[in-house]
C-alpha cells in the first residue's frame, strides 16, 4: 500500500516569485525507508513540511498529496496529527514541557486520550527507548542526543503510520547521530513504520534506506532504489557532495572516464572470507535483483571495491610539505581548569602549541574538554594552574580589552548568539566590518534578517563579525555543526584563504572529514588532555577509528590517503585494470 503518493506537486512561497518545488511526483510504500537528499535550497525541507499539514508553509500549492489513498487535506485534525509523525532538526526547541514524562504524554494529551491509556503508552515507549531511568528528570538535564531521542519517542508514542524526519541529526555529534539513525532504522524494521528522512550527513542513512529521492533546485533529479539512484545522480555535483565517501569516489572515477568496473564485481556481494564466497547479500530483501548495483555505499563495500578493482603498486602520494613558521601563536603549558571547586578538572595539564599561520584542529568526543580549551584561550575561563601564552605574551598580561583588540577572537558554536540586529547590514556595522576582510560577498544578503539566512550564510555572517576586529588568532568552536556539504566546502575554502593571508586558526570539531580537509596539524583531546598531535596526514594515519571514511577504506592498501581527491589520484596513478 502507498502511504504517500505525491503527484505533480508545485509550490511557491508566499514571499517568493520562483517556485520552491516543481512537478514533484513520487510515492512512499508502507514500511519503506526513503531518504530525500539535496543541497540547501533544493526544497527538501519544504517538501517534507508539505507532507505534514500542520507545518505546511504558506504559499501557492498545486498538485496532489495523497495519504493512504486520501487527500491530505481531507484528514481530520486528529488523524493528521497522530498518523503523521514529524521530528525536526533542533533537539532543544522541539521540546515543549519541562519534564521528560510530560513531554512523552504531551501528544496524547492533545489527542484527548484518556489518562489510563496515556499512562500505559508512555510506559511502553519509555521502556522501548530505554529512557526509563530519566523518566522523571527535567529535560534540561539531558544531552543533545538524549533530547533528540526524547523527541522521537514523544512522536512515536502517538503511534504514527509514517515518520517524517527533517535533518534530525544535524545538531548531534557523530556518535549520537549514528545512534539516532540506527534507532530509526530499528523502528522501521521492528514495527514496519514508514520513514521519510532528509539529511545532510548521509554516511549513516544511505546504507539503511530503501529508496532515494534526489532533489536539486526544487526538481526531482532521480528517484528509485538507493544503489541505482546513487549512480544516476553522480553527474550532479551539488547533490554528490553530500554523499558518502565511497559514492563520491565511485562517481569521481566514473566521471574521469579512464576506468571500468570489472565485470564480475558486485558491490552487494559480501566480502570473500577465507576464499569462500559468502551468500549474496542484499541490504534489504526488496525482491528485485540488482543489475546496475555496482556503486559501493559504505566503508566496507568501498574497501572491497578498491581492493578488487585496482592495483596498489604505488602505495602513497608524494608529500607536499608546507613550509611553516616556527613561531608560536598560542601555547598551553600544563594548563588545568575546573568549573567548580568540587568538580573534577575539565582540562588537566593540557599542553600544546599552535604555530603562526596554520590551521590547527582539535578533535575529540563530547565532554573531552575541547570547548573549554577554546574558552581558556579566549580568556573567558581562567585556568587555575599552568600557563597560557598568546604570541609569546602571557595571557594574564593582556590588560582588559587588549586581548580582543586585533589579537584574539572566537566564533562560538551557536553563531546565532552573536546576532543582535534586524538586518545583515546593521549586524556588520556593529563591528565595523569591511568587505575586503572576508572572501565572501554579503551584498545580496545585506537587507535580509540574520535569522532568515541559511545555516551556511549565518556561519559566514558570524565569521565576518569575528574577524572584524582584525584578530591574529581566530578560535572556532564546532564551525560545521548543521552545515551541509556544500556550505562546509565553501567554509573550508574561506578558512584556507584567511590562513594564507596570515591568520592563525585554532578550531575544535567532531567533524573528522572537515578537519582532514582544512587542517595543517591536528590533535586528539581525551579527558582534558592532548593524547596525540601531529601533521594531518601522520595524525590520521595513526588513528584507526578517528579518521576519515576514505582513509578507513584504503588503510593497508594505500598509505596516507585522507581525501576522496587523493584516493582518485592514487588510483589513477596505479591504473585500473586488475584481472
Amino acid at each position, binding site marked *: 500500500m502507498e502511504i504517500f503518493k505525491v503527484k505533480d506537486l508545485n509550490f511557491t512561497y508566499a514571499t517568493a516569485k520562483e517556485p520552491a518545488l516543481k512537478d514533484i511526483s513520487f510515492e512512499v510504500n508502507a514500511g519503506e525507508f526513503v531518504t530525500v537528499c539535496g543541497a540547501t535550497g533544493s526544497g527538501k525541507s519544504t517538501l517534507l513540511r508539505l507532507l505534514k499539514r500542520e507545518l505546511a508553509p504558506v504559499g501557492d500549492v498545486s498538485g496532489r498529496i495523497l495519504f493512504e489513498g486520501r487527500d491530505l487535506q481531507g484528514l481530520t485534525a486528529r488523524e493528521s496529527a497522530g498518523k503523521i509523525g514529524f521530528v525536526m532538526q533542533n533537539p532543544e*526547541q522541539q521540546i515543549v514541557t519541562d519534564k521528560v514524562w510530560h513531554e512523552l504524554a504531551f501528544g496524547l494529551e492533545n489527542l484527548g486520550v484518556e489518562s489510563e491509556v496515556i499512562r500505559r503508552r508512555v510506559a511502553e515507549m519509555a521502556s522501548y527507548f530505554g529512557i526509563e531511568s530519566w523518566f522523571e528528570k527535567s529535560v534540561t538535564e539531558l544531552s543533545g542526543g538524549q533530547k533528540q531521542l526524547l523527541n522521537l519517542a514523544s512522536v512515536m508514542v502517538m503511534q504514527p503510520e509514517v515518520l517524517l524526519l527533517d535533518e534530525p541529526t544535524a545538531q548531534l555529534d557523530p556518535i549520537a547521530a549514528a545512534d539516532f539513525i540506527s534507532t530509526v532504522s530499528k523502528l522501521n524494521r521492528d514495527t514496519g513504520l514508514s520513514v521519510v528522512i532528509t539529511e545532510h550527513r548521509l554516511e549513516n542513512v544511505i546504507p539503511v534506506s530503501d529508496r532515494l529521492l534526489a532533489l536539486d533546485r526544487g526538481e526531482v533529479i532521480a528517484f528509485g532504489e538507493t544503489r541505482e539512484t546513487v549512480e544516476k545522480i553522480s553527474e550532479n555535483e551539488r547533490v554528490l557532495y553530500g554523499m558518502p565517501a565511497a559514492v563520491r569516489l565511485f562517481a569521481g572515477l566514473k566521471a574521469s572516464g579512464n576506468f571500468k568496473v570489472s565485470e564480475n564485481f558486485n558491490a552487494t556481494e559480501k566480502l570473500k572470507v577465507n576464499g569462500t564466497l559468502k551468500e549474496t547479500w542484499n541490504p534489504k530483501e526488496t525482491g528485485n535483483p540488482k543489475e546496475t548495483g555496482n556503486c559501493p555505499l559504505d566503508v566496507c563495500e568501498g574497501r572491497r571495491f578498491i581492493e578488487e578493482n585496482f592495483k596498489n603498486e604505488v602505495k602513497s602520494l608524494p608529500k607536499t610539505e608546507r613550509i611553516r613558521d616556527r613561531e608560536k601563536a598560542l601555547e598551553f603549558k600544563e594548563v588545568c581548569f575546573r568549573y567548580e571547586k568540587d568538580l573534577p578538572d575539565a582540562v588537566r595539564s593540557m599542553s600544546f602549541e599552535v604555530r603562526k599561520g596554520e590551521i590547527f584542529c582539535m578533535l575529540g568526543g563530547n565532554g573531552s574538554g575541547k570547548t573549554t580549551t577554546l574558552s581558556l584561550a579566549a580568556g573567558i575561563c581562567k585556568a587555575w594552574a599552568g600557563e597560557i601564552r598568546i604570541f609569546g605574551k602571557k595571557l594574564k598580561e593582556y590588560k582588559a580589552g587588549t586581548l*580582543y583588540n586585533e589579537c584574539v577572537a572566537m566564533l562560538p558554536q551557536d553563531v546565532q*548568539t552573536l546576532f543582535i540586529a534586524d538586518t545583515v547590514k546593521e549586524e556588520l556595522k556593529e563591528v565595523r566590518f569591511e568587505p575586503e576582510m572576508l572572501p565572501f560577498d554579503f551584498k545580496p544578503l545585506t537587507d535580509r534578517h540574520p535569522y532568515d539566512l541559511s545555516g551556511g550564510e549565518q556561519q559566514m555572517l558570524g565569521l565576518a563579525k569575528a574577524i572584524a576586529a582584525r584578530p591574529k588568532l581566530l578560535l572556532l568552536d564546532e564551525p560545521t555543526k548543521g552545515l551541509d556539504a556544500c556550505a562546509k566546502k565553501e567554509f573550508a575554502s574561506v578558512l584556507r584563504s584567511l590562513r594564507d593571508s596570515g591568520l592563525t586558526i585554532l578550531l575544535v570539531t567532531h567533524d573528522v572529514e572537515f578537519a582532514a580537509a582544512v587542517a595543517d596539524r591536528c590533535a586528539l583531546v581525551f579527558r582534558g588532555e592532548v593524547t596525540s598531535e601531529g601533521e594531518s596526514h601522520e595524525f590520521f594515519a595513526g588513528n584507526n577509528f578517528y579518521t576519515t571514511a576514505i582513509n578507513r577504506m584504503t588503510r593497508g592498501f594505500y598509505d596516507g590517503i585522507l581525501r576522496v581527491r587523493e584516493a582518485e589520484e592514487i588510483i589513477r596513478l596505479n591504473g585500473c585494470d586488475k584481472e
Partner: protein
Amino acid sequence: MTALSEYNPIVIAIYFLSVAGLAMFIMNPVLLFVSFFGSLLVFYTLNRGKKDRSKGMFLLLFLLLGLLNPIFHHNGTTVLFVVNDNPITTEALAYGFTSATMVVSVIYWFRGFSTLMTSDKLLYVFGKISPKFSLMLSMALRYIPLFANKFRQIKAARKALGLYRQDNIPDTLKSNLKAFVALGGWSLENGIVTADSMEARGYGSGRRSFFSRYSFKKKDLIAVTVTLLPVLAVIGIKLSGSLDFVFYPEMSGKLLNKGALWAYACYTGLMMLPLISDAAEREKWKSLRSKI
C-alpha cells in the same frame, strides 16, 4: 519527612493553605504561638540536614515588625514610657509581636510548602484550574534554564569579540542590555520552533486531556478529610467568638476558655499531622521489616 510528599499535591496544597490561612486570619496569641513553633518544626523536619541561611533575616524581620507597631500606634492604656510626647504602650507592643509572630509563621508555612510543592506538583494543581495556564507555565519553566544558559553563552561570545565590557558601570549596563537584546531575538526566533512542534503533535486539534502522574487515591480522600475536620472545627469556634481577643484599649478576652482550648487542641493536632503520618509510616516499615 517524606510521608506528606507522597500524597496528591492537592492534599498538600489544602494542608498548607489551611494552616497558614488559619494563622493569618485568627488574631489569637496562643494559637499564633502554637502556629509559630509548628511552622518551624515542620519546616525544619522537611529540611533536615540542610542549612537555613535566611533564618537571621527572619529573626530580624520578627523583631522589626514587633517593634514597629508601638511606634505607630499609641492607643492602649498601659503606658510603658513616653517618647516625644508619644506614649509607648504594652498593648501596642503585644499587638506588634502577635502580628510579627503571625507574619513569620506564615512565611515559614509557605517555606515548608515550597519545599514539598515541586514545580510539577504546583503545575498539577494549576492544571486543575486551567490546563492551558499550567501548560504555559510548564513551557516557561522548560525555557528558563535554556535561556539562562544561552544568556551566559551570549555574554561569553560577545566578550570574546570585545563587544562585552565591564570596566565601569555604564559599560556593564550597556553590555548587559545588548546581550539581553540578543537573547530576546534568539529566544523569540527559536520559540516558533516550539509552536511548530506543538502543532505537529496535535496541539489545537480538539479537546485536550490532562495527564498527570498523580491520581486521587483513597488515602488522599482520607487525608483531606482528616485535614478539613479540625480546620472546620477551628473556624466554627472562631465564629462562636471563643477565640476573640481584643488588644485595645486594653487586652481583654479569655485565652483559656473551653472553646478556645478545643480550638488550640484541633490546631495543634492539625500541625502535627505531617509528623504523625511520617511516624506512622516509619513504624509500619519497621514492623514489615521485622516480619521478613
